[in-house]
């Protein structure tokens, strides 16, 4: 059974990358419609009706965010597309930019029109340099066809669109750090308020949106917000790109209708195709490295015993600490052979490396967590280390300038909450813990079979 695809329907057609192919498949209709038949506020209204939530991780309603843009001064307004995509496990935006760049450009034009923006930027992570060239080519094509520049399609609306490479730092994906970086400074997050919608790039009202979010806008304009809102489930409307990886048969990027059961997503042939080698499912990180890990018993069912669905609400489990988050859709599956301690250390290593270092809890705490985890993983852990680790993550969470601090703490907290016995096993069996052969076929000591 094939389901509705809003973004990826034509993605496998090679001609879709060029402007002619894109137009042939219905491209740029939304720009025509918005600029010629709609008022800017009507576009925002449709986006509000659609219930679209930001796809960059936090899931904030896009229409509402747009309506916060400050109109009380005559400063220029900016739209920034967040194409930094650096969350480990998340690799969905690249697919859109690589295969169907005009969809993003069309979304940027329509969104900029809605927001009264005259200059917009796509801030792309430095490592995606080859995609930058693809985007630049597409932007040039759009200028040549009159979709960008002065008086677009003969209307009074004009827009300039630039693509700007970042320095390759995860923190530059945080919206205010992105703004600092775009201004040519260190990518340090700013203290909020003021929020970017009031004082963003160069002190002017600014909206930052994820690539996938912006790519949804043309569909919403063409088909109407209500049509979009009828797809999905509850407050999780529409479709979502999920980048699936780990021990599954078919890793890749899938566009799902929100509300698909997690079990179906993992096991059906349409999506992940089950666990590689027929092994047992052990754990799941459903939304990129920063979201809490779920143990086997909570992957297909929530704490209340309901089926777990791929949606913002269901994955977060209604606020239970046993839940996780849909986040950016980086779906990482672990089979029975994977070591949670090692994985947690690996994530921690990343957060230690990427902290901007501005605020003390994150700067010092991420390194401390990494070192404790490293020690446990390499057979020198102590029982007290588990509580110490718990304590250190608590000192970071909620006490920092930007959500990076929480992102570094949550994976550690969830790993201890759900897999404490595995941490204890590491302390009690240091020799075995060190000897295991990771990721190279079957490891010598499947963790579940060992009881401390």
């Amino acid at each position, binding site marked *: 059974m094939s389901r509705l695809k809003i973004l990826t329907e034509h993605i496998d057609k090679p001609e879709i990358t060029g402007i002619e192919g894109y137009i042939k498949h219905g491209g740029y209709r939304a720009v025509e419609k918005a600029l010629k038949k709609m008022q800017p506020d009507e576009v925002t209204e449709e986006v509000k009706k659609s219930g679209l939530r930001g796809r960059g991780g936090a899931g904030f309603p896009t229409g509402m965010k747009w309506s916060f843009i400050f109109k009380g001064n005559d400063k220029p307004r900016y739209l920034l597309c967040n194409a930094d995509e650096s969350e480990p496990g998340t690799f969905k935006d690249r697919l859109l930019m690589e295969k169907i760049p005009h969809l993003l450009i069309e979304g940027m034009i329509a969104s900029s029109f809605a927001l009264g923006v005259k200059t917009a930027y796509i801030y792309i992570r430095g490592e995606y340099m080859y995609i930058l060239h693809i985007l630049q080519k597409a932007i040039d094509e759009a200028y040549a066809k009159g979709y960008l520049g002065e008086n677009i399609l003969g209307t009074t609306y004009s827009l300039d669109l630039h693509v700007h490479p970042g320095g390759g*730092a995860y*923190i530059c994906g945080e919206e205010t750090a992105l703004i600092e970086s775009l201004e040519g400074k*260190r990518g340090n997050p700013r*203290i909020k308020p003021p929020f970017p919608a009031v004082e963003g790039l160069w002190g002017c009202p600014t909206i930052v949106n994820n690539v996938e979010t912006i790519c949804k806008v043309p569909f919403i304009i063409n088909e109407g917000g209500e049509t979009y809102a009828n797809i999905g489930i509850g407050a999780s409307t529409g479709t979502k790109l999920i980048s699936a990886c780990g021990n599954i048969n078919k890793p890749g990027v899938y566009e799902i209708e929100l509300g698909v059961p997690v079990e179906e997503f993992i096991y059906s042939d349409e999506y992940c195709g089950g666990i590689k080698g027929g092994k047992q499912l052990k754990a799941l990180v459903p939304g990129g490295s920063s979201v809490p890990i779920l143990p086997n018993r909570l992957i297909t069912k929530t704490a209340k015993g309901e089926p777990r669905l791929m949606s913002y609400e269901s994955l977060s489990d209604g606020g239970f600490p046993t839940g996780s988050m849909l986040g950016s859709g980086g779906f990482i599956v672990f089979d029975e052979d994977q070591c949670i301690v090692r994985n947690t250390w690996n994530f921690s290593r990343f957060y*230690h*490396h*990427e*902290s*901007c*270092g*501005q*605020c*003390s*809890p*994150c*700067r*010092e*705490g*991420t*390194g*401390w967590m990494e*070192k404790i985890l490293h020690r446990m993983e390499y057979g020198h852990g102590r029982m007290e280390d588990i509580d*110490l680790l718990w304590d250190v993550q*608590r*000192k970071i969470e*909620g*006490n*920092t*300038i930007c959500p990076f601090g929480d992102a570094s703490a949550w994976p550690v907290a969830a790993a201890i909450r759900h897999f404490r016995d595995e941490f204890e096993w590491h302390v009690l069996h240091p020799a075995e813990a060190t000897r295991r052969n990771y990721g190279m076929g079957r490891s010598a000591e499947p963790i579940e079979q060992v009881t401390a």
Partner: protein
Amino acid sequence: MPKVTIDNITIDVPPGTTILNAARMIGENVPPAMCYYSKLKGSGGKCRVCLVKVTKTSEQNPRGMPKLVASCVTQIADGMVVENITSPEVVEARKGVVELLLINHPLDCPVCDQAGECHLQDLSYEHGAATTRYDFGRRTFNKIDIGPYIQLHMTRCILCYRCVYTADQLTDGRVHGIINRGDAAEISTYIENIIDNDFSGNVIDVCPVGALTDRTFRFKSRVWFTKPMNAHRNCDKCSGKVTLWFQGEEVLRVTGRKDQYGEVEEFICNTCRFETKKKSDWVVEGHRRIDTHSVIAQNHLPYELDVVHPQIEQAQ
């Protein structure tokens, strides 16, 4: 004027006042500040020692804020209720921040020039734990002379950014800032450059710890053995109002005058600070008032011992 209640004390403050400044106006239970500096624009929000709990956001919004907030960058709203030391959560979080700050700060107070004037020392004394749970290697650095007047001990730096803002806002052609990220971040001058302009010495005064030291004073004396006096001179670059730190008749050090929060009242130029060190260069105004709780007060303030009247138990 909006009303704010901090640790059960209510005060009216001008709109736009931050929680920290409102607490300073009350004058009791003032949250500590390691990175905020009222004289430096944009400072604050980084060290997180001033975290407080907002239990009521405003008259209109009686719910509190979900997380602790940095009092130095959070503005008050009418009817706001704040807990500082009355909140166990705040006390716990602050203790955590102090522990984290001390991870990479050596306890070299016995030889540090800032001993006795160090905000981190005060902070750990008031809010820290007596022991450490950190048992990994700590960062080490060589000391660096940045120019003829200033020495940087990067080991002691807590990355509060105060000196960066000072250099940015007070001196021309800033050459110093922070390089690298996370716990590898460090203060540095632009490649081997020196901080060389008329107001550079102020970075020493704003540093809350002993990371930036005055090369004309280092190791001359412990601060509590010196005698602080207010003095002034005619200066064409700054107000010329300073504190002179005497040993006998000799001026060992010149600094800006600091207010009760340890912040410089008026920034001074390098000539006043480094080059006019004879008593005769100055008009000495008189003793500088030093808080009795400060170790600098030792040896200086006249004080009387309480008279104890022992109650001799009456034989029954």
